[in-house]
């Protein structure tokens, strides 16, 4: 296999991590919403926390995007 082709394949595979991060973010907001619907009065206080969790989960997915970018442009 050509090195260039392998690079593109690797970058494509790395982006799968972003989809997995999307599952995590979806889980966080889904659970936040179901909790908020059970106890709407407590929802506002936990709003920032939900976003922090989503940001952390997203950050891990972003790493895989960076891996893809590095494979495409740097390696």
């Amino acid at each position, binding site marked *: 296999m050509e090195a260039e082709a392998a690079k593109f394949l690797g970058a494509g595979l790395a982006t799968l991590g972003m989809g997995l991060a999307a599952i995590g973010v979806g889980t966080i907001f889904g659970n936040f919403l179901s909790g908020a619907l059970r106890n709407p009065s407590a929802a506002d206080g936990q709003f920032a926390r939900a976003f*922090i969790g989503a*940001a952390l989960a997203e950050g891990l997915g972003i790493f895989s995007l960076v891996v893809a970018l590095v494979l495409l442009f740097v390696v």
Partner: protein
Amino acid sequence: MASGSVIDPIHQFQIIKIVELGQPGGIELAFTNSAAFMFGIVALVFFFLTFATRGRTLVPGRLQSMAELSYEFVASTVRGSAGNEGMKFFPLVFSLFIFVLTANMVGMIPYAFTVTSHLIVTAALALVVILTVIIYGFVRHGTHFLHLFVPSGVPAFLLPFMVVIEVISFLSRPISLSLRLFANMLAGHIAMKVFAGFIVMMTASGVVGWFGAVLPLAMVVALTALEFLVAALQAYVFAVLTCIYLNDALHPGH
């Protein structure tokens, strides 16, 4: 930026030298479009805040309400995450938040340069945060600051592993903080440009393409809305995480 027939989603991130400043010590220095936008952002923020509050009216007008809202929003975020003690970092957090927010929003203007889509910029901002945390933590608490890495109530045989994990998680903070902002802005802008490129491609292929181009057009409209949301959200996330890290500097030890 569609220049002629070439649609290059990366071109928008190009750094263009406006004034070359020579190479002192072998380092290339130049006044670039990025620098121009940075100063534009600073001027925009400053003049907006001073212009909006010029009346100092008791009952705020629209602009003054915006200025006060941004102030109180950041203030409540700082108070909520780092407590009243954290208010001494309020100017820093506010500057970071307003800089990132304005940079993201200015980047949404067509043909504008997005300052925060450059890794070195976000990394520098994250370094400002983490250096503030480390320096303030040591100045304020001395070696007690190192308790941050020693979680309490952990069995002795697990402690070395926990310390290693805590140190790694601490060191990954500036990395994730900068990469998150950088990658969000980069990926969003690339996605928008790619879909916009599809419109140009389809319309180039005739009348059928004109109808087919409706789909990517709708996608671009939706993506634009999403990007505005992301632009605001990433600025907020940056500010909140800054507050949380500062809280560690204020109250180390779990």
